[in-house]
């Protein structure tokens, strides 16, 4: 029995070790993840509290309190919304001699004591109230976005490569079907499936998790749909010529995993290394999640998320042109 076991054990080891792509990926992938996280969160530990500051704060007193991150604020209305949503613990308008605190926020209450206990007793309080944006509220758009990304990339990219490898594309090439017709069918098919699945997950989750949704449903739908088309098009580029499923899987992993970690699915990119924040902007997932979060958590309208939609549109056009140009049936 041991002899047979050993024979299979050795054969399997050789099979794995000689598959250079799989071996390389297995070695490289964890290293890349650890290195990525180490780089993203390099520098000083994250501060405990966040205070928005409108105007120029004096470099003394409350504004030198340790473990508090003081964030310059240009848009006072947007900052007040953040206090309402518990995303800022306190907001101080230096020139107007007033401050905003959410009476439902324990962190805000504590910071208010620190503020008034220092040399700022003359500031007028502007109380606001608002529901706490919990992690589940914050993470939901990211999780939906991640689901769309995997469905788009693997559902189109991987499937087309498989079709090419097993001869389905060759068979279709022998018919009057054009490449553009074939690709368009793939895009439309995957898009409606993505939209349907996202809607089921969204409303299904809403039945047992009372998550925040301050914006318009149609606007949110548009953000997800445009993100979906963009990532489907990205999948077409990857699948345009590859005929090896193993190589395609490696490529898709190489793209999807960094995108999942660096597009703000699980954690906010605020406080990460500036290079990471810049890198994140090349990923369509970042723009889709930003737009979806703005709609769901801040009640943003179409105009407010137009920049993200514009970027997604431009990326989609680029991917489609490249994908159609590169595409080969065989």
């Amino acid at each position, binding site marked *: 029995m041991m002899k047979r076991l050993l024979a299979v054990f050795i054969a399997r080891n050789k099979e794995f070790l000689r598959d250079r792509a799989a071996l390389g990926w297995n070695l490289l992938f964890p290293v890349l993840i650890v290195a990525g996280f180490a780089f993203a969160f390099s520098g000083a530990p994250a501060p405990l509290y966040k205070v928005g500051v409108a105007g120029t704060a004096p470099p003394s007193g409350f504004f030198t309190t340790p473990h508090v991150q003081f964030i310059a604020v240009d848009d006072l209305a947007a900052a007040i919304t953040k206090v309402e949503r518990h995303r800022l613990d306190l907001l101080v308008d230096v020139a107007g001699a007033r401050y905003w605190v959410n009476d439902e926020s324990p962190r805000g209450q504590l910071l208010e004591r620190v503020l008034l206990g220092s040399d700022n007793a003359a500031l007028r309080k502007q109380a606001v109230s608002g529901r706490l944006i919990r992690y589940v509220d914050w993470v939901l758009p990211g999780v939906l976005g991640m689901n769309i990304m995997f469905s788009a990339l693997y559902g189109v990219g991987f499937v087309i490569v498989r*079709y090419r490898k*097993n*001869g*389905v594309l*060759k*068979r*279709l*090439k*022998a*018919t*009057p*079907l054009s490449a553009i017709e074939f690709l368009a069918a793939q895009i439309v098919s995957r898009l409606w499936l993505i939209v349907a699945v996202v809607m089921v997950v969204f409303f299904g989750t809403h039945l047992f998790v009372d998550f925040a949704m301050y914006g318009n449903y149609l606007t949110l739908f548009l953000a997800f749909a445009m993100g979906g088309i963009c990532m489907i098009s990205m999948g077409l580029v990857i699948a345009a010529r590859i005929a090896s499923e193993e190589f395609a899987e490696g490529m898709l992993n190489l793209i999807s995993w960094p995108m999942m970690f660096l597009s703000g699915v699980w954690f906010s990119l605020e406080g990460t290394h500036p290079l990471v924040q810049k890198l994140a902007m090349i990923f369509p997932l970042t723009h889709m999640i930003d737009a979806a979060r703005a709609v769901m958590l801040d009640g943003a309208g179409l105009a407010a998320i137009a920049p993200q939609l514009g970027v997604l549109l431009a990326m989609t056009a680029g991917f489609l042109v490249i994908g159609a140009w590169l595409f080969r049936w*065989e």
Partner: protein
Amino acid sequence: MSALIEVDNLVKHYQGVRAVDGISFTIPRGACIGLLGPNGAGKTTTVEMLEGIKEPTSGSIRYQGEPLGAKFRREAGIMFQSTALQEFITVRETLRMFRSLYDHGVALDELIDACALHSFLDRDTRKLSGGQRQRLLLAIALVNDPQVVFLDEPTTGLDPQARRMLWELVRDIRRRGKTVLLTTHYMEEAYELCDEIIIMDQGRIIAHGSPDDLLARHFHDVVLQLPKADFTAGVLPQLTALDCGDSVEILTSAVTDTVQQLLAGGVSLDRLRIRARTLDDLFLELTGKELRT
């Protein structure tokens, strides 16, 4: 018969290898042409160029006098040697999908009857037997009511019963006036179905004609087969006996004389078999290779 397809000086290079090396032939309308050759002879490359799947390096292929184009794709039916179908869809759905790709075609019910697909119409294509799968692939090749049908090794891997059923379907296609180009490893299949055969080796055509003509042109003898145990070497020095493992083969054009010589030599003829020369023999004669090597 007028030519449906004309092939002129066709060449295909693969990284320095001349897979197809300047071949020319015509396929008459309504004929069944068999393309034979061992693996690596260039027949699949040739067929794929004729199907419009691969671009020739040089030379021309004309369909009804025109270069291969949209008209050819509308009017050609192709059964590839190995084709995967989209998964999780049934036979009926697969037929509907392919039928929808063509403006003109046959009614699905007619196709289902012709290819005997009734018993597994609603079965997932992954769960078909070898014979059922080949019949479905043949039906797909016929879905557009093609003028010319390419069948690339359609019976490879099938049991004898399934193979004969497919032959009957091919004969039915021919009865409808379609032109057929068949590649096969099975000589019996080529002999049964084809009006003409083209034998290729190393990218070139080495023989072209009707099976009977080719055999008559190259052979004037038959083969006598005897178990080696029944044949004593050296008894008949005037006969040339080929050692074929457990048996010996004697080539002769005068069967009666040879049999009398064997009897006179004391050889038992109880297990004697006499067979005519085959296309396998022809190929061996022409190239020195077995047909399936």
